[in-house]
């Protein structure tokens, strides 16, 4: 098959087709759809409990053109292991992919993920990271960023939003010495295509960590997902890199670091953040930026201006419709 190096090489045929029930503008659906398209028809898909389980297939309908299975929440690493073992024994050389949410990956699914990674199972594990348990109504996960509102990190009188910083799951997986780990963003499509292509070609355990905007969960306008993903990378909230056979490589570096307020202000989940909290987040980002890009972060974003007006998105995802 033709090597995909850019958007124009991507096959036209969808494997996760129209007719699914995701919210309009869902970054999760767009990401799953694009990955499935690139993996093509010779693929078996496993999806644990998540938004994708509900919007992708509801008996007797299915938006999947590839074989699809669901069983539970915490076992993506294990069920995909079993499927691959069976296909191998039946001499079927197909791609086995598990597509799990952040909760099903960072939290409840971590054990099975680690088991599959440690065994170097020949499967692709995709984490569709919308930074909270969305299917059950926006509860905090260990992927939720500092400061964010969720229904279990509410904005109270004493405590405002999530107090912990996002867990670095890609690093944890990479530390299992697996052949391929990459972080993806739908706003950086050439990079996205290249990484999925690579994951498809490599043998052994592959982990794709995708940032996927969620309309109600992030309280954003449905049209803004891709711009928000771009801003996530420009502010350091998301870093595009890959670790191939243990060698880490940044695959896209923004020219300059954008102040995190640019990212926060488009999302209702951050609108309550105090200046002190924003400073704390920014400081964390600067440290992360240096760790990833290996140089001093430009200082201006690390000194926060007052932001009373800028964090003003009212959180209504239907705003403007």
């Amino acid at each position, binding site marked *: 098959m033709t090597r995909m190096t850019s958007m124009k090489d991507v096959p036209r045929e969808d494997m996760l087709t129209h007719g699914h029930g995701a919210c309009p503008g869902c970054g999760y659906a767009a990401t799953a759809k694009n990955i499935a398209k690139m993996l093509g*028809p*010779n*693929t*078996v898909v*496993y999806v644990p409990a998540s938004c994708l*389980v*509900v919007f992708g*297939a*509801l*008996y*007797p309908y*299915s938006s*999947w*053109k*590839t*074989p*699809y*299975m*669901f*069983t*539970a929440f*915490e*076992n993506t*690493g*294990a*069920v*995909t*292991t*079993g*499927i*691959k*073992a*069976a*296909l*191998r*024994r*039946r001499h*079927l050389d*197909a791609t086995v992919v598990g597509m799990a949410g952040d909760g099903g990956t960072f939290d409840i699914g971590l*054990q*099975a993920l*680690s*088991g599959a990674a*440690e*065994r170097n199972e020949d499967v692709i594990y995709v984490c569709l990271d919308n930074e909270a348990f969305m299917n059950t109504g926006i509860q905090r996960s260990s992927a939720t960023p500092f400061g964010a509102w969720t229904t279990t990190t509410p904005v109270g009188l004493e405590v405002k939003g999530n107090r912990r910083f996002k867990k670095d799951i890609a690093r944890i997986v990479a530390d299992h010495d697996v052949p391929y780990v990459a972080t993806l963003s739908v706003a950086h499509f050439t990079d996205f295509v290249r990484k999925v292509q690579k994951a498809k070609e490599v043998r052994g355990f592959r982990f794709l960590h995708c940032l996927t905007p969620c309309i109600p969960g992030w309280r954003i306008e449905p049209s803004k997902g891709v711009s928000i993903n771009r801003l996530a990378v420009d502010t350091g909230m998301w870093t595009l890199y890959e670790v191939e056979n243990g060698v880490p490589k940044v695959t896209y570096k923004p020219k300059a670091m954008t102040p995190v307020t640019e990212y926060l202000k488009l999302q209702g989940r951050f609108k309550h953040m105090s200046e002190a909290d924003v400073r704390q987040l920014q400081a964390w980002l600067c440290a992360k930026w240096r760790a990833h890009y290996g140089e001093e972060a430009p200082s201006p974003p690390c000194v926060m201006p007052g932001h009373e007006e800028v964090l003003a998105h009212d959180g209504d995802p239907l705003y403007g419709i």
Partner: protein
Amino acid sequence: MAVKTITGDQAVAYGAMLARAEVVPGFPITPQTVIIEQISEFINDGLMDADFIPAESEHSVMSVAVGASAGGVRTFTATSSQGLALMYEMLFAAAPTRLPVVMAVANRSLGAASGIWTEHNDSVPVRESGWLQVYVEDNQEALDMIIQAFRIAEDRRVMLPIMVCLDGFILSHVVEGVDIPEQAVVDRFLPRFAPVNVLDPRDPIMMNPVTPPEFATELRYQQDRAVEAARTVIGEADEEFAALTGRRYGGLFEAYRLEDAEFALIGLGTWAGIAREVVDQLRAEGKKAGLIKLRYMRPFPGQELRQATLNLKALGTFDRSAAFNGYGPVFTEVRNALYGSGITVTDHLAGIGGRDITAEMVRDMYGLVERSARGEKVRDCTWHALRGEME
């Protein structure tokens, strides 16, 4: 045929090898561990062509098993106690997805007051998981039932997973002479697995999608019919197995000296061995005692038991799992099946936490059942050989 002196766990492993299981996920737990160790040895010695998958927990073991079976290959695993409890969620994925996984359960007590000894309170409580459950009495039956289990599970009329339960230590770690059937004989009895539904990109299907109320009832009903169908299939498999090996187990249950019996006991597992001996003693004393070795908890042979107990005046049930505030699971199932038949049914708990069951204890049980057969009022539920308060 070759007789080998092996433990129950090894007998199970031989069963899995002869059945040509292809994927075996495993995780250690006493007293089951020897099964997966033995299978690993078979594989590494080149005697068995299978993939052993060392999963990181029992939840993952059952998840791997579900994936492998959905991928269309014969899948075997084993567990006990806490391990089975950790699998709980995934038991309910295997059965409705109609995946004929076979699992050996070396019965062991569960939870705090921790012990590793035999008790049926790990497997009996999961009898509503949709899995079929058979309980064996000796190592030969353990081996034979692994082979039969695949045959029953994979029958098109059934397509359900099965647990083959064997008493921990009493069988798992005790050696007995076991006839190892020839591979050719097993192959004749157990053809290659021909799955109905498979995850295969050449013919895409969806397995276990979210199912709304307008279809879920029918799905459960079909599952119920499959459990029902297993009653017939179990009998057929037993007969055909007997024709090939000379060993017949009675299908759903084995009745011992029951034809003219006035009172009898019914129970699961190795207890049947000592109970058979006690029946013989009582018969020698001129007492009309009988025994039912209950083999299957699912499908539960309700109608067949009603038929078999028609001439009894009293029936005692033996329960090897602690029951709180009432009656053990075997009692509940049996009395439910015999409701309205006029037979007195009493419950007898013993062997809890692996306590030895002696002939004397079983005589006590029969004594009570005999008294109730004579019309005397006896306690509904007795904990046998209890130290301290009961009367």
